[in-house]
């Protein structure tokens, strides 16, 4: 195998090359690099490692993945290069890339030969190139090492001839002893592996969500007589009042006055028509954007020809509003040499007379002021009442919290438009607001709030028992999602102070494989039989497809065994009932 870098042949040792298959992810590459480093005795002078991508791999063809690879190897202080086969057409432009090509010629144009960091183009070839890594090429260091080894063996041979024989016997005895020990250990482990092979299946029982919808009859003094089977569950509610709450609402005034100033400046009018023109005061001059400027006095334009045009300088001033009624203000500060047309002229004369600014226009400012309109007061009072209703639930809940702290109860607000009321609304605002130049003004709202509350623990008991009574067979309730409890009041009797509401509660149930009435041993035996003698991957799939299993893990002894044991007595099932924490 030959390698080229910048169109020059280079040598790379096999042991410095890591081949990266297509299914290798970043952690796999890093593992291989770590193995390479561990196999190298000299940690202070680690050689450069070359990653050989023989297919279009994401870690080299996605810039972001290459950056991750580069940074991860940099963390290890590992210098690296990349080898690509010659059939790969091009790669994205990547900085800091030490690129080497394997087994082919580089048809890179001459001009690009000295710039390896540019996008490179390669000749197309076979996509199935069988790449044989270089076995015959030796570096000078390797050749030197071989010579050294050869001379060392010569020295040893000479020494054996010279040394006394008992030393040789001693050394031989030690050698035999070491071999015996190693062999007996290997033998012991081999026998243990064949005598006691076993597999442990750790399974997490099936987890599924469960949801229940139930109606609850809420009563204040005594429950209504049962006339509907839907409200068999009963719960006491408590009426409470939060008196004289106060809140401030700010309302933005809607009246607008344009108090900006209009820009002005000089323009040069050019006439090429063969007749004179008299332009009346307030003649319009229009920009491309539709802004209008007007002259202030009479203007007389002398007759001219296209070859000898006549000119007139006049001062014009911007209108307050543009064609769509938006204030002009600062936009009227035109730049020098802005072209203007005269829209008031007849079509035939429009092309003969034109104007152009002679200077930068100045004086245009955009400024608006807001004032309170009479309709604002009506809108503001409606807005304030709506705001109060929006805040109603929050304020009632706050009042209830304070009550709970003193009475040590666990009452929760029953949130429904039918059960929350606002009484005695009073609005206060400053006098004579109409016409005042205010961006916004404030309204003080005060009212009495009234609502109903229920005991949190009582509701939770009802909901939990409902879920428990509706679990799937051989399941246990693992979690109840009280945080996302939903309910809706669908019937109100204000005279009796009773309500009917539909509650929706969700939870998680898990198959119960311990302590249930199910014949667990039978289930375990079925599980064992289904995986007996199967390859581990296949067995894992079989386990996961079982309706009682959420996930599973398989551990075998000896670790190198890729199949599950054939002996059912050596299979062990462990149940792990932990489930991911639900929010």
């Amino acid at each position, binding site marked *: 195998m030959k390698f080229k870098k910048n169109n020059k042949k280079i040598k790379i040792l096999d042991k410095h090359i890591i081949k990266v298959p297509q299914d290798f*992810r*970043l*952690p796999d590459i890093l593992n291989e690099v770590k193995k390479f480093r561990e196999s190298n005795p000299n940690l202070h002078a680690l050689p450069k490692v070359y990653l050989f991508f023989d297919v279009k791999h*994401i870690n080299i063809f*996605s810039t*972001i*993945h290459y*950056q*991750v690879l*580069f*940074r*991860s190897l*940099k*963390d290890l202080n590992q210098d690296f290069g990349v080898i690509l086969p010659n059939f790969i057409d091009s790669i994205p432009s990547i*900085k*800091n890339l030490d690129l080497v090509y394997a087994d082919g010629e580089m048809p890179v144009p001459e001009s690009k030969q000295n710039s390896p960091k540019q996008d490179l183009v390669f000749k197309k070839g076979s996509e199935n190139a069988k790449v044989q890594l270089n076995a015959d090429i030796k570096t000078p260091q390797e050749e030197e090492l071989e010579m050294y080894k050869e001379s060392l063996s010569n020295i040893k041979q000479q020494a054996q001839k010279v040394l006394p024989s008992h030393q040789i016997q001693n050394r031989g005895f030690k050698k035999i002893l070491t071999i015996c020990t190693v062999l007996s250990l290997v033998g012991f482990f081999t026998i243990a592996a064949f005598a006691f092979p076993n597999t442990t299946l750790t399974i997490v029982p099936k*987890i599924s*969500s469960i*949801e229940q*919808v139930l109606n609850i009859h809420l009563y204040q003094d005594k429950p209504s007589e049962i006339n509907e089977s839907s409200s068999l569950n009963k719960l006491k509610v408590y009426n409470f009042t939060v008196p004289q709450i106060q809140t401030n609402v700010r309302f*933005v005034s809607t009246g607008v006055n344009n108090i900006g100033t209009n820009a002005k400046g000089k323009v040069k009018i050019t006439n090429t028509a063969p007749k004179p023109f008299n332009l009346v005061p307030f003649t319009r001059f229009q920009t491309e954007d*539709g802004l209008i400027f007007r002259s202030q006095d009479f203007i007389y334009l002398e007759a001219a020809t296209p070859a000898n045009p006549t000119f007139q300088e006049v001062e014009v001033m911007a209108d307050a509003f543009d*064609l*769509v009624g*938006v204030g002009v203000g600062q*936009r009227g500060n035109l730049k020098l040499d802005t072209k203007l047309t005269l829209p008031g002229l007849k079509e035939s004369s429009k092309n003969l007379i034109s104007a152009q600014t002679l200077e930068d226009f100045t004086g245009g400012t955009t400024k608006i002021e807001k004032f309170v309109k009479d309709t604002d007061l009506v809108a503001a009072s409606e807005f304030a009442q*709506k*705001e109060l*209703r*929006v*805040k109603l*639930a*929050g304020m009632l809940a706050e009042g209830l919290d304070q009550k709970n702290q003193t009475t040590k109860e666990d009452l929760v607000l029953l*949130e429904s438009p039918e059960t929350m009321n606002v009484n005695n609304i009073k609005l206060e605002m400053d006098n004579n607001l109409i016409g005042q130049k205010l961006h916004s003004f404030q309204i003080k709202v005060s009212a009495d709030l009234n609502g109903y509350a229920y005991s949190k623990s009582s509701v939770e008991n009802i909901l939990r028992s409902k879920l428990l009574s509706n679990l799937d067979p051989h399941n246990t309730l693992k979690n109840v999602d009280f945080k996302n409890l*939903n309910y*809706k009041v669908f019937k109100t009797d204000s005279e009796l102070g009773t309500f009917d509401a539909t509650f*929706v509660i969700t939870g998680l149930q898990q198959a119960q494989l311990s302590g249930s009435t199910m014949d667990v041993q039978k289930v375990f035996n079925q599980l064992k039989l289904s995986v007996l003698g199967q390859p581990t991957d296949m067995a894992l799939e079989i386990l996961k497809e079982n309706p009682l299993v*959420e*996930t599973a893990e398989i551990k075998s002894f000896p670790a190198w065994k890729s199949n599950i044991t054939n002996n059912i007595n050596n299979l062990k099932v462990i149940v792990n009932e932990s489930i*991911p*924490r*639900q*929010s």
Partner: protein
Amino acid sequence: MLKNLFSKTTEIDTFLILDFAQNNLKMLLVSSKYNSQFEHFILAHEVVKHELTLQQILEGEFESIRQEITKRLTKLYKKSAFNIVSCICGLDDAFFESSFYTSSFQTNPTESIDMGTLQNILQQSHSKTRLSVMKKAQQKFKDANLKLIQSDLIDIRLDNKSVTNPLGLKAASVSVIFFNAFCQEKLYDSLTKLTSYIGFPLSQIYLQPVAQSLISQTNQKALIIELSHSKTSITLAKSGRLLKSKTLNFSTQNVINEYANRFTLTQDQAFDMLINYCNDKFEKEYRDIRKATLITINKLIQELKQTIIEFKIFDMKDTQIYIMGGGSYIPEVTELLEEELNNYGCTQLCTIKHFKYLSDPQDLIKDPGSIALLAYANKFLSDKNKNSESAFSANINQILRLTSHNEV
């Protein structure tokens, strides 16, 4: 004025897509004509910065932004004449409240479900689910005046088995899952005002997670993570349909703040440093910056792990991860996602190739932060082409007799 200017008959017909985010407004002009692969060409892309507060947006104080949009469109028009046929607006999830809601009903297992029963079930559950989300939205926005901007039927289950058409089937229980989204009426009015102010009536509003869901075209689940300058949004989708979504209060700003504190920099300097770091230009000691980045991104990954548990994804083997937004160009995001989430596939950076109805021959979309805008355009073009993904909801809406897919 603009309407007249841009509506001559000789120009190219285009769609204008607006993405109103918290600190900028992105615009995309897409040709209404498509090539043989049903790809519409992107003709222009503009980003208009603004400093409007949420209150100003709600109040419709758009004068400065209107002027800027007019200026940009005029400039583009002078380069190459066009006519805007439809104007579409995308909404960041900070501006709306959405929720999935399941309703269950008991039915007679001996009788098959007919159109009348189904209609009753759907109408009842739709009304229940709307009320439930509306209540949440009222609490979030502290506002009673809301507008329903999206209402989709996600799934119908008979005895806990998913079916596409329940008519004629028998079951003891029927569960219906709806997705509803509300925004403040004030916001809807002000967006309509903005588009009509510049001359084009608003034809459609699209929500970020709904639009992004279309990236998942296969049966594999897709976890789409958008790491932007103000938040991180996570969307779980399958076969183009939205399953779950959540917003995390984590953004690239967290990384910038970490740099600013650690290296005593101003916000602008820290921002530049992050951009350079993503481009392999290291202003400070490389290892210090990498350490700071890894520490910060790790916090995001921990929150993501929590979200994955909430989404009830127990095995990432069948889930493909897509990342988008400016933060997706931080290599450490990809690195930690692949390492920590035990993902068996590769994390993919969202690019134009993931949006099957769009083509960018001029390479205009270079900013990774603009990818979300492509999602809105892609969703609009997908609905326009009436492909199979929208057929299901169209049928159901017919049964429900709802006004349309979106009530805008």
